[in-house]
């Protein structure tokens, strides 16, 4: 008898002890705890997450580096000054206006000067702060609008869905960069209520708006599937209002989708900010961002390529670290991804 039970247990992969109902079952582990366990095992994703945190901390320390170590403000150009490079004294800008390259002296023009004689390292940190800030605010705007639009369209269906989906389609049909420069230019000229071209918030608003359909469409599709499930039916039978069902029944079930989208949108928002700024419709001078630095630097090709290389590498490193971490996060939240790789 016992051997038969053991065999049955072997087939189902359950050990004999658990089938014995006198033994108490261990408490269950929630999906988020499981996801966290999987994420913790993914060393590469964690390492890149750490790199991202490091970049954020460095950029937040910009004022300290600027005031106490480099002793130069990000907007201060010193075109007639000199620096020491490896014991030799060199002009910050030489006779034909070409800026000096990296001095590798941590306290003075560490990464060289730009075409106006400003300290690239100091501007890099300040610019990074602006780029990250815009990226973050834009992501919040995208996610908030997309969650509201996607949930309303998916749950209410009918005419609401029709209107929201058509609006999303219109935004979608524009190339992201083209829509960005159209909106950016409009705000630059006219302002939009309290937003003026000189505030970073207007750029964040434009970048955030452009990505709404990319997130709202998948959320709508998921809500369409969710609303047919039994627990939503039960909530409706209990007489809960649609608003309550959407916020307390549907929204929690969207959590993992939302978490997966956040790094994706953040990475794209930072890239798009740089692109808009490169085209002159994003961050306006004197504010620095990685986009303005690259765009200024391209005009000094081929004489002073460090002006493009330094902010460019920071930009790629930041976006790459967000992407790799986000990928790990998705694998952790979507267990099927693990099985998929295992089965091959």
């Amino acid at each position, binding site marked *: 008898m016992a051997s038969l039970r053991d065999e049955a247990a072997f087939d189902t992969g359950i050990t004999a002890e658990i089938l014995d109902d006198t033994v108490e079952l261990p408490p269950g582990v929630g999906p988020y705890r499981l996801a966290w366990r999987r994420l913790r095992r993914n060393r590469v994703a964690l390492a890149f997450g750490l790199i991202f945190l490091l970049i954020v901390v460095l950029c937040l320390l910009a004022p300290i580096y600027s005031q106490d170590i480099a002793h130069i403000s990000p907007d201060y150009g010193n075109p007639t000054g000199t620096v020491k490079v490896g014991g030799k004294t060199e002009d910050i800008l030489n006779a034909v206006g070409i800026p000096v390259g990296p001095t590798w002296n941590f306290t003075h023009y560490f990464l060289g000067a730009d075409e106006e004689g400003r300290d690239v390292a100091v501007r890099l940190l300040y610019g990074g702060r602006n780029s990250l800030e815009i990226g973050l605010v834009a992501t919040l705007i995208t996610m908030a609008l997309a969650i509201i639009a996607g949930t309303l369209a998916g749950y209410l269906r009918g005419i609401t869905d029709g209107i929201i989906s*058509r609006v999303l*389609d*219109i935004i979608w*049909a*524009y*190339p992201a*960069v*083209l829509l960005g*420069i*159209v*909106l950016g*230019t*409009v705000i630059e*000229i*006219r302002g939009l209520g309290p937003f003026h071209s000189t505030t970073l918030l207007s750029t964040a608003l434009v970048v955030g708006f452009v990505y709404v359909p990319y997130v709202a469409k998948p959320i709508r599709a998921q809500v369409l599937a969710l609303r047919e499930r039994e627990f939503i039916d039960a909530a409706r039978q209990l007489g809960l209002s649609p608003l309550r069902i959407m916020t307390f029944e549907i929204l929690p079930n969207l959590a993992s989708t939302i978490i997966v989208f956040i790094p994706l949108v953040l*990475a794209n928002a930072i*890239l798009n900010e*740089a*692109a808009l700024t*490169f*085209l*002159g*419709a994003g961050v306006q001078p004197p504010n620095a961002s990685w986009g303005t630095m*690259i*765009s200024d*630097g*391209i005009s000094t*090709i*081929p004489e002073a*390529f460090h002006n*493009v*290389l330094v902010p*460019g590498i920071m*930009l*790629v490193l930041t*976006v*790459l670290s967000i*992407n*790799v971490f986000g*990928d790990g996060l998705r694998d952790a939240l979507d267990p099927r*991804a693990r099985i*998929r*790789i*295992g*089965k*091959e």
Partner: protein
Amino acid sequence: MARFLVRRLAVMVGMLFAISLVTFLLFIVALPGGNPAGMLAGRLATPAEVHLISVHYGFDKPIWVQYFRTMEHIFDGTSYSYQSGFNVLSEIEAGLPTTLSLALGAGVIWFLTSIVVGTLAAIKAGRYTDRVLTVLSMIGVSMPVFFLGAILIYYAGYKASLIPISGYVPLSNPADWLWHLIAPWFTLSVLFIGIYSRILRSTILDTINEDFVRTARAKGLSQRQVLLRHILRNSLVPIVSLWGLDLAQVIGGGAILTESVYSLHGVGYLAYQSVQHFDTVTLLSIVMLTAFCVVLLGAIVEVLYAFLDPRIRLQ
């Protein structure tokens, strides 16, 4: 099929109308005083001259009359740029060969490369090849177009003199045409290869476990036949739809960054210029072109869908 086409056409017209209206309103709102006449007349113009221009172009009419007049001129090809005074249609026509060369070449490159990369990564899933390809596509996705362009121009253009630094040469000189487009093609393709190959990799890994794949193996098809005829054909559906949309946007002036980094004076560059100069008519025409391409290629993609996956019916 006929019903599908009619429905598609109706959606297309509606979309084009909405998109043109939104763009038009955005620029009416943005222009100082909502009237481009002041800009057309120049800084030294007297109010009387501004008024004359206003009447001539119809800027004194209600907005909806202006809108329909503008659209009428765009469609019969008699609209003139507020900025340069040139015929908008001929300006777009002048930019089209550049943009088409860039878009179609890059489109073919990124489509084929991502199929190869994605398939390779999927059949080697979890192994060394897969990891290297994943890292490369991650970097590709994280690379800003203008930074990649700047790197290529500096290292391959200035330093190694391997590629020309910028500009476009017409197709009448095929060798030079190719020569000048290699770097822009590569620059434009990298991002898409990164995205597509990762999507294809995961779709293939999903498809591998499907019943019809097991059936194909069971009836004794070779590994290659299973891969090409059954797995790949089914996994291509999401890639093809993305490709249609992305290609449409690039043809309609979406490659603004690539075109401006390499000074290719195509449709994207024209769009960029017209935004900077508040040239509503030119921008409207380009946006219409983009939207037209997006909707048209969207319909073509749906037909392709039905061909790739017989379970999908056109309706």
